[in-house]
């Protein structure tokens, strides 16, 4: 087997007239931490959804752990773990039940399941809350539980879609440390998306994606070198001509039109 964990070739996805992913190609090596960096609506989640078999590709090809997402979805599913951007917990169950059921569908034997649950609960600091119904949790606690669940079975490839949004800085740091050590010790490939520049810097390589296209792809150090700036934030600004937190230019344009129209009316 070759050393490629994810191979994407000319991948596209359209929703009606919206092009969410526009002919992108890239490869992620085994054991690599790979980052997708881009503004809202860039196509990050759509790409992940295709890679984890929730969406079929509109065009092109995606191979995950040697399996084609289109023809061998179950083999792909067996190879991956994912932390979704949007909530996906069962809020009527307790934290423990959420984790236990996750372990069951990934076939962890009950003894290992118990051990792993204790470990990940401890990692996200929710051990004391394990028998509470998830609905009673704060937003950050839910997020932490979600992360704990995604890390519970040790997948070959881990997808993290903006995993740390809504978390306090301390927890964020702690979770990233855990993920980095996980990828190092267990040779797990990590594919992450983020808006946070500092998070992208833990990646071995980072792709900057905008309007469904990869604009650059390199190591954070090489990117900084190439663009002669010190942070990924500035690189983003240079490459796309916008700040990452800014709205897309068309939206600004529309807002401008709206304001002008209002002025005319008066």
């Amino acid at each position, binding site marked *: 087997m070759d050393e490629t964990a994810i191979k994407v070739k000319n991948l596209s996805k359209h929703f009606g007239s919206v092009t969410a992913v526009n002919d992108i190609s890239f490869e992620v090596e085994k054991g690599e931490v790979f980052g997708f960096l881009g503004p809202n609506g860039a196509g990050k989640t759509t790409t992940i959804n295709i890679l984890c078999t*929730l969406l079929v590709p509109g065009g092109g090809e995606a191979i995950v752990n040697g399996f084609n997402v289109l023809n061998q979805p*179950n083999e792909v*599913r067996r190879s991956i773990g994912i932390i979704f951007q949007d*909530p996906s917990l*069962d809020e009527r169950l307790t934290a423990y039940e959420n984790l236990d059921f*996750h372990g*069951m*569908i990934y076939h962890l034997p009950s003894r290992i399941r118990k051990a792993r649950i204790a470990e990940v609960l401890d990692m996200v600091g929710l051990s004391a809350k394990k028998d509470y119904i998830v609905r009673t949790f704060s937003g950050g606690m839910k997020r932490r539980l979600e992360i704990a669940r995604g890390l519970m079975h040790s997948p070959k490839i881990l997808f993290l879609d903006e995993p740390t949004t809504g978390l306090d800085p301390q927890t964020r740091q702690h979770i990233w440390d855990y993920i980095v050590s996980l990828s190092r010790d267990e040779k797990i490939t990590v594919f992450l998306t983020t808006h946070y520049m500092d998070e992208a810097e833990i990646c071995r390589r980072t792709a900057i994606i905008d309007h469904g296209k990869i604009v650059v792809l390199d190591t954070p150090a090489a990117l900084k070198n190439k663009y002669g700036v010190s942070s990924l934030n500035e690189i983003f600004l240079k490459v796309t001509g916008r700040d990452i937190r800014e709205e897309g230019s068309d939206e600004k344009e529309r807002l401008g039109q709206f304001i002008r129209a209002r002025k005319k009316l008066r």
Partner: protein
Amino acid sequence: MDFDAIRMIWLRDIIRHFRDKVRLLGSITRPVLWLLIMGTGLRAAFNMHGISYTHYIFPGIIAMNLIFSSMQSTISIIWDREFGFLREILVAPIPRSSIVLGKALSGATVAFIEGCFVLVFAPVIKINIPPVNLLLLLPLIFFIGFVCTTLGIVIAARMTSFEGFGVISNFVIMPMFFLSGAMFPIDNLPHWISFVIRINPLTYGVDLLRWDILGMKIFSFYVDFLFLLIFAFIMLGIGVFEFSKTN
């Protein structure tokens, strides 16, 4: 077949069901109301050749609890889609057939419990079910609950909103219930209605129940049983297809 996954989906639904107190209450009050109101109210209007109307509709009330309960169970599919949990299931390495089967079994289990609850009223309205018939009645109730759930799964899998499900299931539940022979005999009806009755799975379910409880029947046991079995298989097939869709 992935038995771990089937067990997980089943167990989760059962746990959630028993935490939902309102629903438990509904399943208890519904048959009481219908037996009381319909049974006493319509008694005079019907002449059932020597059998009391309350007795006549008793199997129908069981069927009613089965269909209501299984439709309600399958709402959880829409719920799960809305609140994201469905993605946790869909992204897991579970054959889609196991997802559907797990759902069908949990819906059938809940329906079974709610259907059996109606049996408590048998002594109250003086229906005497011999032990042997009672023993056969239990698997029959489970089976009919299972069949109804498979239909609910197909509807829920195609729905994207609660409102839509409410509308559709009302369009399905009410006609299915009334055109099944649950509340009134289905002979001597206009042609088009008798066609609807014949393709209604609940007709065969009610027929099975009434045969076992009262010894009355329209079709033979095998016709009832085979129709329901084939219907369930078709629904399961469509359900698996719907769950495999990724567009």
